[in-house]
């Protein structure tokens, strides 16, 4: 089958570029690359949540739950880092499950504000309670990923390149899982719940259960992203997960567009490159938020369907049948 062969070659080429990429970058750019890789998982998980039509302002706090949980599991309980990352993801999913009871009594604008309130409460609890969350200064000296080696390759995870490979592999796996969920009958049901929740109900869909499912699964992946970040940076504090950070996630998602799986990913990559690399290199330090804000406004005015709509014009969408 030539088509399959073509796809394999294409993906192999993409993988090769991604593996080679950090070696073409400066040290600080490598660090940005690590953060961007993790952020890709944040936006992709955010998109899963938006599939059911609800926009949350608490997603970044859920990312933070994963970060705090994983950091505390290693610090207080001595759990090995990779295991604690998974436990952090589970903690995020569990917290989301708990939050879903009050939050999914709301819809639309009220859900937006409700999710903000719930997230902000969690964040303020971190800020208020020194034990165990460390108060406003947060948690320092979080255990890094232990070094390890495969044959001749040694991975020192203080090195951004090494961590990039590790995080990249984890994120790639997660993106694949998210993609499979979206393309499955479950994903179709999410779409259905978004477009016509009453009709979906009349077909026997428990709409609230599906909203909760999307929220919980998305939160699990978000928590994993948070844990990946925490063990790389080594320090976390409540301000890292505030509403301004949420605005960035929202911006990536909207500038990229939410109709496709790759839209938010495109938004994240394009804006990170613009913000961190182009503007920084050009020396617009203080002006960066201004240009960023202007880009946001211009894109919502002139490209309301996001960057993905440009791609869709080039490639006609293909419907999948089993």
């Amino acid at each position: 089958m030539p088509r399959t062969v073509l796809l394999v070659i294409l993906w192999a080429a993409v993988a090769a570029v991604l593996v080679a990429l950090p070696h073409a970058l400066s040290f600080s750019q490598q660090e940005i690359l690590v953060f961007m890789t993790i952020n890709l998982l944040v936006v992709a998980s955010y998109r899963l949540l938006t599939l059911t039509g609800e926009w949350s302002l608490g997603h970044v706090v859920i990312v933070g739950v994963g970060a705090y949980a994983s950091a505390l599991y290693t610090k207080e309980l001595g759990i090995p880092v990779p295991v604690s990352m998974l436990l952090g993801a589970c903690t995020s999913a569990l917290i989301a499950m708990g939050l879903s009871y009050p939050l999914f009594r709301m819809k639309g604008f009220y859900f937006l504000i409700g999710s903000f309130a719930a997230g902000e409460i969690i964040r303020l609890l971190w800020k208020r309670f020194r034990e165990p969350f460390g108060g406003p200064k947060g948690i320092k000296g979080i255990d890094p990923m232990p070094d390890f080696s495969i044959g001749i390759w040694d991975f020192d995870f203080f090195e951004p390149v090494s961590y990039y490979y590790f995080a990249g592999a984890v994120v790639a796996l997660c993106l694949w899982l998210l993609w499979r969920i979206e393309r499955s009958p479950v994903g179709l049901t999410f779409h259905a719940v978004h477009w016509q929740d009453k009709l979906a109900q009349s077909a026997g869909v428990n709409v609230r259960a599906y909203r909760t499912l999307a929220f919980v699964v998305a939160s699990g992946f978000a928590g994993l992203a948070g844990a990946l970040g925490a063990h790389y940076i080594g320090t976390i504090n409540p301000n890292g997960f505030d509403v301004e950070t949420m605005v960035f996630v929202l911006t990536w998602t909207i500038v990229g567009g939410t109709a496709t799986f790759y839209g938010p990913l495109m938004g994240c990559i394009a804006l990170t490159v613009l913000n961190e690399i182009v503007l920084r290199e050009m020396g617009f330090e203080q002006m960066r938020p201004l240009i960023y804000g202007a880009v946001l406004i211009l894109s919502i005015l002139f490209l309301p369907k996001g960057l993905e709509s440009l791609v869709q014009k080039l490639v006609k969408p293909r419907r999948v049948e089993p």
Partner: protein
Amino acid sequence: MNPFLEIDRLTMRFGGLTAVDGLSFTVEHGAIHGLIGPNGAGKTTTFNAISGFYRPSGGEVRLRGEVISGLSMHEVARRGVIRTFQHSTLFAEMTVLENALMGTHMAFRPNVFAAIVGWDREDRRGAYARAVEALEFFGLEGLRGERAGDLAHGHQRALGMAIAYAAHPDVVLLDEPFTGMNPEETTRMMELMRKLRDSGVTILIVEHDMHAIMGLCDRITCMSFGKLLAEGGPAEIRSHPDVIEAYLGGARHVS
């Protein structure tokens, strides 16, 4: 033996207004049953109370003796009572096939873990087969790749019924299926409904269009101001003095 679908002293109040007032009637298994009445008689409210859209203020709806009133819509659906909506309520952004696939939700309940691991191949194949069968039943198989929102009006209505049919219903509730249809489309739609009934599905129709109702229904319940006015076969209803008066009083004539 219990009656098949039984509406028992159903009452719906909104604030001070009583939209349905102690309405009782039964629907026989395998029948096409019409629910008619002049504007504001409470037909749609009754319909919504049966389908679980509203929780009745009083009375009960029973299916084969089991109380289904007060359940939420998806729970009513899981007991075999599937409703359609007025106008062309569809998953407009999805394809025709995807719409029909949503109808198979209950028979092939999706599962996240199975979907990730790939253990749901059988289910997906089964759902696909059922969806295609439903589309073929309503003559839509040629349109499966189209966006549902782009279909012609008559096709959209048929697709709404195909979604319901794909769910293996015992009872289908049709909410004003003939509104906005020309005579040709109406005739075609009536054929589809008879075909649906002949496949073993009981149908309850709420409708304004008296012509279609008279030619189609085995039994008709006529209500007015929230109460039962008359019940019987089409011939009885057509000549029933109370029905005629109610419709004339409501400035509508029986054709």
